[in-house]
Protein backbone atom coordinates (compact mmCIF):
# COMPACT_ATOMS: atom_id res chain seq x y z
CA UNK A 1 0.00 0.00 0.00
CA UNK A 2 1.47 3.33 -1.06
CA UNK A 3 -0.81 5.45 1.10
CA UNK A 4 0.63 7.07 4.19
CA UNK A 5 -1.51 6.08 7.12
CA UNK A 6 0.52 7.69 9.87
CA UNK A 7 2.67 10.78 9.48
CA UNK A 8 4.70 12.50 12.19
CA UNK A 9 3.74 16.02 11.08
CA UNK A 10 0.60 15.83 9.00
CA UNK A 11 -2.28 14.82 11.22
CA UNK A 12 -4.60 13.93 8.39
CA UNK A 13 -4.72 14.32 4.66
CA UNK A 14 -7.61 16.29 3.36
CA UNK A 15 -9.51 13.57 1.51
CA UNK A 16 -12.92 13.20 -0.01
CA UNK A 17 -15.05 10.09 0.16
CA UNK A 18 -13.85 6.80 -1.19
CA UNK A 19 -14.97 6.29 -4.78
CA UNK A 20 -14.54 3.64 -7.43
CA UNK A 21 -13.06 4.34 -10.85
CA UNK A 22 -11.68 2.19 -13.60
CA UNK A 23 -8.18 1.97 -15.00
CA UNK A 24 -8.14 0.23 -18.39
CA UNK A 25 -11.44 -1.35 -17.38
CA UNK A 26 -10.20 -2.58 -14.02
CA UNK A 27 -12.02 -1.23 -10.99
CA UNK A 28 -9.93 0.66 -8.46
CA UNK A 29 -10.57 2.79 -5.43
CA UNK A 30 -9.46 6.30 -4.72
CA UNK A 31 -10.59 9.41 -2.91
CA UNK A 32 -12.85 11.92 -4.51
CA UNK A 33 -11.08 15.20 -5.22
CA UNK A 34 -7.56 13.84 -5.19
CA UNK A 35 -5.69 13.96 -8.49
CA UNK A 36 -6.28 10.96 -10.70
CA UNK A 37 -2.50 10.46 -10.72
CA UNK A 38 -2.41 10.15 -6.92
CA UNK A 39 -5.18 7.57 -6.96
CA UNK A 40 -3.36 5.58 -9.63
CA UNK A 41 -0.08 5.77 -7.76
CA UNK A 42 -1.80 4.56 -4.59
CA UNK A 43 -3.00 1.60 -6.63
CA UNK A 44 0.50 0.89 -7.87
CA UNK A 45 -0.04 2.12 -11.43
CA UNK A 46 3.20 3.57 -12.81
CA UNK A 47 2.64 3.69 -16.57
CA UNK A 48 0.24 6.38 -17.73
CA UNK A 49 0.96 6.33 -21.39
CA UNK A 50 3.18 5.11 -24.20
CA UNK A 51 4.79 7.72 -26.42
CA UNK A 52 3.98 8.36 -30.05
CA UNK A 53 7.39 7.84 -31.65
CA UNK A 54 9.29 5.38 -29.51
CA UNK A 55 6.35 3.69 -27.79
CA UNK A 56 8.08 4.24 -24.46
CA UNK A 57 6.29 4.22 -21.11
CA UNK A 58 5.78 7.45 -19.18
CA UNK A 59 4.31 8.28 -15.82
CA UNK A 60 4.21 11.06 -13.28
CA UNK A 61 7.06 13.52 -13.64
CA UNK A 62 6.28 17.00 -12.31
CA UNK A 63 2.91 16.30 -10.64
CA UNK A 64 1.85 19.93 -10.93
CA UNK A 65 0.45 20.12 -14.42
CA UNK A 66 3.45 21.46 -16.30
CA UNK A 67 5.29 18.63 -17.92
CA UNK A 68 2.23 16.90 -19.47
CA UNK A 69 3.98 13.55 -19.16
CA UNK A 70 1.24 11.99 -17.05
CA UNK A 71 -1.50 12.51 -19.63
CA UNK A 72 -4.04 9.74 -20.16
CA UNK A 73 -7.39 9.20 -21.79
CA UNK A 74 -9.85 10.25 -19.07
CA UNK A 75 -13.53 9.79 -19.79
CA UNK A 76 -12.65 9.54 -23.45
CA UNK A 77 -10.57 12.71 -23.54
CA UNK A 78 -6.92 12.14 -24.52
CA UNK A 79 -4.04 14.28 -23.25
CA UNK A 80 -5.72 14.84 -19.90
CA UNK A 81 -3.19 15.85 -17.27
CA UNK A 82 -3.95 13.33 -14.55
CA UNK A 83 -1.91 15.14 -11.91
CA UNK A 84 -4.27 18.12 -11.97
CA UNK A 85 -7.49 16.34 -12.91
CA UNK A 86 -9.46 15.53 -9.80
CA UNK A 87 -10.93 12.08 -9.31
CA UNK A 88 -14.67 11.60 -9.57
CA UNK A 89 -16.81 8.57 -8.95
CA UNK A 90 -16.93 6.24 -11.92
CA UNK A 91 -14.18 7.91 -13.93
CA UNK A 92 -12.94 5.94 -16.91
CA UNK A 93 -9.16 6.24 -16.95
CA UNK A 94 -7.20 4.64 -19.76
CA UNK A 95 -3.59 4.27 -20.76
CA UNK A 96 -2.87 6.63 -23.63
CA UNK A 97 -1.11 5.32 -26.69
CA UNK A 98 0.58 8.03 -28.72
CA UNK A 99 -1.78 10.85 -29.62
CA UNK A 100 -4.70 9.32 -27.86
CA UNK A 101 -5.83 6.23 -29.67
CA UNK A 102 -6.33 3.36 -27.27
CA UNK A 103 -3.89 1.21 -29.20
CA UNK A 104 -1.18 1.87 -31.73
CA UNK A 105 -2.35 1.72 -35.27
CA UNK A 106 -0.67 -1.29 -36.73
CA UNK A 107 0.52 -0.40 -40.17
Amino acid at each position, binding site marked *: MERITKHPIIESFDKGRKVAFTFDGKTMEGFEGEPVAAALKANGVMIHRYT*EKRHEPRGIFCAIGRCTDCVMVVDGV*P*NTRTCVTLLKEGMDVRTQYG*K*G*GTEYEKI
Partner: protein
Amino acid sequence: MNTSDVLIIGAGVVGCAAAYYLRKNGVSVTVLESDMIGNGGSSRNGGGVRISGRDPRELGICAYGVKNIWPTLSEELGIDVEYRQKGYLVCGYDDSHKRLIKDRINTAAKFGIKMELKEEEEIRSLYPYVSEHVTCAGWTPSDGVANPLKTTLGYYIRARENGARFITGEKVLCIEKIKGRARKVITESGNVYEAESIILACGYGGRKILNSVGIEVLMQKKLEEVIVTEPAPRLFDHMIGGMSGFYGQQTEHGSFVLGSSCGRETYLFNKSNTVSTYSAPSFICDSIGVDIPALKKLKVIRTWSGWIDRSYDAVPIIGNIEEVPGLFVSIASSGHGFGPGPAVGFILSELAQGRPSPVDISKLHYDRFDYVKYQDRYFVSDVGGSFS
Protein backbone atom coordinates in the same frame (compact mmCIF):
# COMPACT_ATOMS: atom_id res chain seq x y z
CA MET B 1 34.53 40.59 -49.57
CA ASN B 2 30.83 41.52 -49.49
CA THR B 3 30.35 40.99 -53.18
CA SER B 4 28.28 38.36 -54.90
CA ASP B 5 26.42 37.83 -58.15
CA VAL B 6 23.07 38.12 -56.49
CA LEU B 7 22.08 39.69 -53.23
CA ILE B 8 18.84 38.61 -51.63
CA ILE B 9 17.13 40.72 -49.00
CA GLY B 10 14.95 38.54 -46.78
CA ALA B 11 15.42 34.90 -45.76
CA GLY B 12 11.82 33.84 -46.00
CA VAL B 13 10.53 31.06 -48.19
CA VAL B 14 11.01 33.14 -51.35
CA GLY B 15 14.48 34.34 -50.44
CA CYS B 16 15.66 30.90 -49.36
CA ALA B 17 14.15 29.23 -52.43
CA ALA B 18 15.71 31.82 -54.75
CA ALA B 19 19.07 31.31 -53.04
CA TYR B 20 18.72 27.57 -53.45
CA TYR B 21 17.90 27.74 -57.18
CA LEU B 22 20.64 30.28 -57.84
CA ARG B 23 23.22 28.09 -56.15
CA LYS B 24 22.01 25.17 -58.21
CA ASN B 25 23.13 27.14 -61.22
CA GLY B 26 26.40 28.08 -59.60
CA VAL B 27 25.50 31.72 -59.08
CA SER B 28 27.10 33.26 -55.99
CA VAL B 29 24.51 34.46 -53.49
CA THR B 30 24.41 36.45 -50.30
CA VAL B 31 21.19 36.57 -48.29
CA LEU B 32 20.69 39.37 -45.78
CA GLU B 33 18.06 38.85 -43.11
CA SER B 34 17.17 41.41 -40.46
CA ASP B 35 15.83 38.83 -38.02
CA MET B 36 16.38 35.08 -38.24
CA ILE B 37 15.63 32.56 -40.96
CA GLY B 38 11.98 32.46 -41.94
CA ASN B 39 10.62 34.35 -39.00
CA GLY B 40 8.01 36.30 -40.90
CA GLY B 41 5.02 35.13 -42.87
CA SER B 42 6.97 32.13 -44.14
CA SER B 43 6.67 30.47 -40.77
CA ARG B 44 3.45 32.11 -39.75
CA ASN B 45 0.84 30.69 -42.05
CA GLY B 46 -1.53 27.77 -42.37
CA GLY B 47 0.60 25.89 -44.86
CA GLY B 48 -1.94 25.99 -47.67
CA VAL B 49 -0.75 25.13 -51.16
CA ARG B 50 -3.73 26.04 -53.26
CA ILE B 51 -4.67 27.27 -56.66
CA SER B 52 -8.34 27.71 -55.96
CA GLY B 53 -9.75 31.02 -54.86
CA ARG B 54 -6.82 32.86 -56.37
CA ASP B 55 -6.96 36.04 -58.28
CA PRO B 56 -6.51 35.21 -61.98
CA ARG B 57 -3.34 37.29 -62.09
CA GLU B 58 -1.47 35.08 -59.65
CA LEU B 59 -3.05 31.81 -60.63
CA GLY B 60 -0.32 31.04 -63.15
CA ILE B 61 2.44 31.13 -60.55
CA CYS B 62 0.45 29.01 -58.13
CA ALA B 63 -0.27 26.43 -60.81
CA TYR B 64 3.37 26.40 -61.84
CA GLY B 65 4.42 25.55 -58.30
CA VAL B 66 1.83 22.85 -57.82
CA LYS B 67 2.77 21.28 -61.13
CA ASN B 68 6.55 21.65 -61.24
CA ILE B 69 7.90 22.14 -57.74
CA TRP B 70 5.75 20.88 -54.88
CA PRO B 71 5.34 17.24 -55.94
CA THR B 72 9.10 16.61 -55.91
CA LEU B 73 10.26 19.16 -53.37
CA SER B 74 10.82 16.73 -50.48
CA GLU B 75 12.88 14.52 -52.76
CA GLU B 76 14.78 17.45 -54.20
CA LEU B 77 15.72 18.86 -50.80
CA GLY B 78 16.11 15.52 -49.07
CA ILE B 79 13.93 17.00 -46.33
CA ASP B 80 10.31 16.04 -45.87
CA VAL B 81 8.33 19.22 -46.38
CA GLU B 82 5.13 17.28 -45.70
CA TYR B 83 3.43 18.27 -48.91
CA ARG B 84 0.23 16.40 -49.59
CA GLN B 85 -2.19 17.11 -52.39
CA LYS B 86 -5.41 16.05 -50.73
CA GLY B 87 -7.72 18.84 -51.70
CA TYR B 88 -9.14 21.98 -50.20
CA LEU B 89 -12.59 22.36 -48.74
CA VAL B 90 -13.93 25.83 -48.34
CA CYS B 91 -17.10 26.01 -46.29
CA GLY B 92 -19.96 28.36 -47.05
CA TYR B 93 -23.06 29.09 -45.08
CA ASP B 94 -25.53 30.79 -47.38
CA ASP B 95 -26.45 31.60 -50.93
CA SER B 96 -24.03 34.47 -51.23
CA HIS B 97 -21.22 32.06 -50.41
CA LYS B 98 -22.56 29.62 -52.93
CA ARG B 99 -22.38 32.35 -55.57
CA LEU B 100 -18.84 33.17 -54.57
CA ILE B 101 -17.83 29.53 -54.85
CA LYS B 102 -19.44 29.33 -58.28
CA ASP B 103 -17.43 32.38 -59.38
CA ARG B 104 -14.28 30.70 -58.24
CA ILE B 105 -15.21 27.53 -60.08
CA ASN B 106 -15.61 29.53 -63.28
CA THR B 107 -12.27 31.25 -62.81
CA ALA B 108 -10.59 27.94 -62.10
CA ALA B 109 -12.14 26.34 -65.14
CA LYS B 110 -10.62 29.00 -67.38
CA PHE B 111 -7.22 27.79 -66.24
CA GLY B 112 -8.11 24.15 -66.57
CA ILE B 113 -8.37 23.59 -62.83
CA LYS B 114 -11.07 21.35 -61.48
CA MET B 115 -13.14 22.76 -58.67
CA GLU B 116 -16.56 21.52 -57.59
CA LEU B 117 -19.52 22.82 -55.67
CA LYS B 118 -20.61 20.45 -52.92
CA GLU B 119 -24.23 20.66 -51.93
CA GLU B 120 -25.52 19.98 -48.45
CA GLU B 121 -26.29 16.32 -48.83
CA GLU B 122 -22.87 15.51 -50.22
CA ILE B 123 -21.19 17.56 -47.53
CA ARG B 124 -22.93 15.53 -44.82
CA SER B 125 -21.71 12.26 -46.26
CA LEU B 126 -18.23 13.24 -47.46
CA TYR B 127 -17.18 15.57 -44.67
CA PRO B 128 -19.10 14.37 -41.61
CA TYR B 129 -16.94 16.49 -39.28
CA VAL B 130 -18.30 19.80 -40.57
CA SER B 131 -21.44 21.04 -38.91
CA GLU B 132 -24.90 21.61 -40.37
CA HIS B 133 -24.01 25.26 -40.34
CA VAL B 134 -22.09 24.51 -43.52
CA THR B 135 -24.59 24.39 -46.34
CA CYS B 136 -22.35 24.61 -49.36
CA ALA B 137 -18.69 24.09 -50.04
CA GLY B 138 -16.09 24.44 -52.73
CA TRP B 139 -13.83 21.45 -53.28
CA THR B 140 -10.56 21.62 -55.18
CA PRO B 141 -8.85 18.23 -55.34
CA SER B 142 -5.57 19.59 -56.69
CA ASP B 143 -5.03 21.86 -53.69
CA GLY B 144 -3.02 20.70 -50.75
CA VAL B 145 -0.93 21.55 -47.72
CA ALA B 146 2.72 21.51 -46.69
CA ASN B 147 4.76 22.30 -43.62
CA PRO B 148 5.85 25.92 -43.96
CA LEU B 149 8.52 25.63 -41.27
CA LYS B 150 10.25 22.70 -42.88
CA THR B 151 9.85 24.10 -46.38
CA THR B 152 11.47 27.42 -45.56
CA LEU B 153 14.20 25.97 -43.37
CA GLY B 154 14.67 23.11 -45.83
CA TYR B 155 15.46 25.53 -48.65
CA TYR B 156 17.73 27.46 -46.30
CA ILE B 157 19.62 24.39 -45.12
CA ARG B 158 20.30 23.18 -48.67
CA ALA B 159 21.09 26.62 -50.05
CA ARG B 160 23.56 27.21 -47.23
CA GLU B 161 25.04 23.76 -47.71
CA ASN B 162 25.52 24.54 -51.40
CA GLY B 163 27.41 27.69 -50.62
CA ALA B 164 24.86 30.47 -50.29
CA ARG B 165 26.03 32.93 -47.69
CA PHE B 166 23.33 33.86 -45.19
CA ILE B 167 23.77 36.69 -42.75
CA THR B 168 21.10 37.10 -40.13
CA GLY B 169 20.54 40.08 -37.87
CA GLU B 170 21.66 42.28 -40.75
CA LYS B 171 18.94 44.83 -41.39
CA VAL B 172 19.01 46.47 -44.80
CA LEU B 173 18.35 50.19 -44.74
CA CYS B 174 18.64 51.15 -48.37
CA ILE B 175 19.56 50.19 -51.88
CA GLU B 176 21.93 52.37 -53.85
CA LYS B 177 22.35 52.55 -57.58
CA ILE B 178 25.65 52.53 -59.42
CA LYS B 179 25.41 53.96 -62.92
CA GLY B 180 21.66 53.68 -62.86
CA ARG B 181 21.53 50.04 -61.76
CA ALA B 182 20.70 48.65 -58.29
CA ARG B 183 24.04 47.38 -57.12
CA LYS B 184 24.62 48.27 -53.53
CA VAL B 185 22.93 47.62 -50.23
CA ILE B 186 23.68 49.40 -46.96
CA THR B 187 22.69 47.93 -43.64
CA GLU B 188 21.89 49.32 -40.23
CA SER B 189 25.25 48.15 -38.93
CA GLY B 190 26.95 50.18 -41.66
CA ASN B 191 28.00 47.21 -43.75
CA VAL B 192 27.92 47.56 -47.50
CA TYR B 193 27.14 44.68 -49.86
CA GLU B 194 27.42 44.71 -53.62
CA ALA B 195 25.96 42.51 -56.32
CA GLU B 196 25.02 42.40 -59.99
CA SER B 197 21.36 41.92 -59.13
CA ILE B 198 19.26 42.33 -56.05
CA ILE B 199 16.22 40.32 -55.04
CA LEU B 200 13.94 41.94 -52.49
CA ALA B 201 11.67 39.50 -50.65
CA CYS B 202 11.28 40.72 -47.12
CA GLY B 203 7.60 41.40 -46.64
CA TYR B 204 6.41 44.67 -45.24
CA GLY B 205 9.96 45.72 -44.40
CA GLY B 206 10.56 45.97 -48.14
CA ARG B 207 8.48 49.08 -48.39
CA LYS B 208 11.02 51.35 -46.74
CA ILE B 209 13.86 49.81 -48.72
CA LEU B 210 11.99 50.44 -51.96
CA ASN B 211 11.38 54.00 -50.85
CA SER B 212 15.16 54.42 -50.77
CA VAL B 213 15.23 54.01 -54.55
CA GLY B 214 12.17 56.18 -55.04
CA ILE B 215 9.60 53.44 -55.33
CA GLU B 216 6.35 53.39 -53.40
CA VAL B 217 4.11 50.37 -53.20
CA LEU B 218 0.58 50.28 -51.92
CA MET B 219 0.62 48.03 -48.90
CA GLN B 220 -0.56 47.78 -45.37
CA LYS B 221 0.22 45.71 -42.30
CA LYS B 222 -2.46 43.48 -40.90
CA LEU B 223 -2.23 41.11 -37.94
CA GLU B 224 -3.43 37.57 -38.49
CA GLU B 225 -3.61 35.03 -35.68
CA VAL B 226 -3.36 31.30 -35.43
CA ILE B 227 -4.20 28.65 -32.87
CA VAL B 228 -2.37 25.34 -32.57
CA THR B 229 -3.99 22.36 -30.89
CA GLU B 230 -2.67 19.26 -29.19
CA PRO B 231 -1.95 16.41 -31.65
CA ALA B 232 -4.93 14.21 -32.36
CA PRO B 233 -5.58 11.06 -34.40
CA ARG B 234 -6.20 11.96 -38.04
CA LEU B 235 -9.56 13.53 -38.71
CA PHE B 236 -8.96 14.74 -42.28
CA ASP B 237 -5.99 15.36 -44.49
CA HIS B 238 -7.20 18.14 -46.76
CA MET B 239 -6.87 21.85 -46.31
CA ILE B 240 -9.94 23.49 -44.84
CA GLY B 241 -11.25 27.01 -44.77
CA GLY B 242 -14.47 28.82 -44.16
CA MET B 243 -16.24 31.90 -45.35
CA SER B 244 -16.09 33.09 -41.74
CA GLY B 245 -12.44 33.67 -42.51
CA PHE B 246 -10.67 30.71 -40.97
CA TYR B 247 -8.28 28.36 -42.73
CA GLY B 248 -5.87 25.65 -41.77
CA GLN B 249 -4.94 22.01 -41.68
CA GLN B 250 -4.31 19.04 -39.50
CA THR B 251 -0.56 18.75 -39.79
CA GLU B 252 1.41 15.56 -40.35
CA HIS B 253 2.22 15.77 -36.68
CA GLY B 254 -1.47 15.58 -35.80
CA SER B 255 -2.02 19.03 -34.39
CA PHE B 256 -4.47 21.41 -36.01
CA VAL B 257 -3.09 24.73 -37.14
CA LEU B 258 -5.96 27.10 -37.74
CA GLY B 259 -5.77 30.76 -38.53
CA SER B 260 -8.14 33.65 -38.79
CA SER B 261 -8.62 37.13 -37.52
CA CYS B 262 -11.34 38.68 -35.44
CA GLY B 263 -11.31 41.84 -37.49
CA ARG B 264 -10.45 43.98 -34.51
CA GLU B 265 -6.69 43.54 -34.52
CA THR B 266 -5.96 46.70 -36.43
CA TYR B 267 -7.87 48.74 -33.90
CA LEU B 268 -6.38 47.18 -30.78
CA PHE B 269 -3.63 48.52 -28.56
CA ASN B 270 -0.56 49.38 -30.55
CA LYS B 271 1.48 46.23 -30.28
CA SER B 272 5.20 46.20 -30.52
CA ASN B 273 5.53 42.45 -30.90
CA THR B 274 3.64 39.61 -32.46
CA VAL B 275 2.16 38.00 -29.39
CA SER B 276 -1.52 37.35 -30.04
CA THR B 277 -4.18 39.82 -29.08
CA TYR B 278 -6.49 38.94 -26.23
CA SER B 279 -9.44 38.97 -28.48
CA ALA B 280 -8.63 36.93 -31.59
CA PRO B 281 -7.84 33.44 -30.26
CA SER B 282 -11.17 33.24 -28.46
CA PHE B 283 -12.94 34.41 -31.57
CA ILE B 284 -11.13 31.85 -33.70
CA CYS B 285 -11.93 29.02 -31.29
CA ASP B 286 -15.54 30.06 -31.19
CA SER B 287 -15.92 30.32 -34.95
CA ILE B 288 -14.14 27.06 -35.68
CA GLY B 289 -16.26 25.30 -33.10
CA VAL B 290 -19.29 26.32 -35.09
CA ASP B 291 -17.95 24.86 -38.34
CA ILE B 292 -16.06 21.80 -37.04
CA PRO B 293 -17.66 20.78 -33.73
CA ALA B 294 -15.38 17.74 -33.50
CA LEU B 295 -12.50 20.06 -32.66
CA LYS B 296 -14.21 21.75 -29.73
CA LYS B 297 -12.87 19.27 -27.19
CA LEU B 298 -9.31 19.59 -28.46
CA LYS B 299 -6.95 21.59 -26.36
CA VAL B 300 -5.21 24.65 -27.73
CA ILE B 301 -1.56 24.61 -26.71
CA ARG B 302 -0.31 27.71 -28.44
CA THR B 303 -1.42 30.74 -30.33
CA TRP B 304 0.66 32.99 -32.47
CA SER B 305 0.27 35.83 -34.84
CA GLY B 306 2.07 37.45 -37.69
CA TRP B 307 1.93 40.44 -39.92
CA ILE B 308 0.44 40.21 -43.35
CA ASP B 309 1.88 42.59 -45.90
CA ARG B 310 -1.28 43.27 -47.78
CA SER B 311 -1.32 45.13 -51.06
CA TYR B 312 -4.14 47.42 -52.10
CA ASP B 313 -5.80 44.64 -54.09
CA ALA B 314 -4.63 41.75 -51.89
CA VAL B 315 -2.59 40.35 -54.77
CA PRO B 316 1.20 40.07 -54.55
CA ILE B 317 3.69 42.32 -56.28
CA ILE B 318 6.21 40.23 -58.16
CA GLY B 319 8.75 40.96 -60.82
CA ASN B 320 11.27 43.54 -61.94
CA ILE B 321 11.05 47.25 -61.44
CA GLU B 322 11.81 49.23 -64.59
CA GLU B 323 12.94 52.33 -62.74
CA VAL B 324 15.52 50.30 -60.86
CA PRO B 325 17.23 47.95 -63.26
CA GLY B 326 18.72 44.90 -61.56
CA LEU B 327 16.10 44.85 -58.82
CA PHE B 328 13.56 42.05 -58.60
CA VAL B 329 10.89 41.98 -55.96
CA SER B 330 8.36 39.74 -54.29
CA ILE B 331 6.43 41.64 -51.68
CA ALA B 332 2.89 42.19 -50.48
CA SER B 333 2.09 38.49 -50.51
CA SER B 334 -1.13 39.58 -48.86
CA GLY B 335 -1.38 36.58 -46.58
CA HIS B 336 -1.28 33.86 -49.18
CA GLY B 337 2.32 33.81 -50.26
CA PHE B 338 3.47 30.51 -48.83
CA GLY B 339 1.92 28.18 -51.42
CA PRO B 340 3.41 30.03 -54.39
CA GLY B 341 6.59 30.80 -52.41
CA PRO B 342 8.85 28.16 -53.98
CA ALA B 343 7.67 29.07 -57.48
CA VAL B 344 8.19 32.75 -56.81
CA GLY B 345 11.68 31.99 -55.54
CA PHE B 346 12.41 30.04 -58.67
CA ILE B 347 11.02 32.73 -60.97
CA LEU B 348 13.04 35.47 -59.26
CA SER B 349 16.16 33.35 -59.55
CA GLU B 350 15.52 33.09 -63.28
CA LEU B 351 14.95 36.83 -63.62
CA ALA B 352 18.10 37.58 -61.67
CA GLN B 353 20.04 35.46 -64.13
CA GLY B 354 18.62 37.43 -67.01
CA ARG B 355 16.21 34.76 -68.10
CA PRO B 356 12.49 35.22 -68.64
CA SER B 357 9.89 34.07 -66.16
CA PRO B 358 8.41 30.71 -67.12
CA VAL B 359 4.94 32.09 -66.40
CA ASP B 360 3.31 35.39 -67.15
CA ILE B 361 3.79 37.74 -64.22
CA SER B 362 3.16 40.97 -66.04
CA LYS B 363 -0.08 41.65 -64.18
CA LEU B 364 1.67 41.45 -60.81
CA HIS B 365 3.66 44.54 -61.59
CA TYR B 366 4.15 46.99 -58.74
CA ASP B 367 2.71 50.03 -60.52
CA ARG B 368 -0.57 48.42 -61.48
CA PHE B 369 -2.37 50.71 -59.06
CA ASP B 370 -1.37 53.79 -61.01
CA TYR B 371 -3.44 55.35 -63.78
CA VAL B 372 -6.48 53.31 -62.80
CA LYS B 373 -9.79 54.48 -64.13
CA TYR B 374 -13.01 53.91 -62.30
CA GLN B 375 -14.20 51.13 -64.59
CA ASP B 376 -10.88 49.26 -64.35
CA ARG B 377 -10.75 49.11 -60.61
CA TYR B 378 -9.61 45.75 -59.44
CA PHE B 379 -11.91 43.70 -57.33
CA VAL B 380 -10.76 43.99 -53.75
CA SER B 381 -11.57 40.84 -51.90
CA ASP B 382 -11.36 40.72 -48.16
CA VAL B 383 -12.12 37.04 -48.06
CA GLY B 384 -9.48 36.14 -50.59
CA GLY B 385 -6.88 38.05 -48.68
CA SER B 386 -6.11 35.60 -46.00
CA PHE B 387 -6.28 32.08 -47.21
CA SER B 388 -2.78 30.75 -46.91
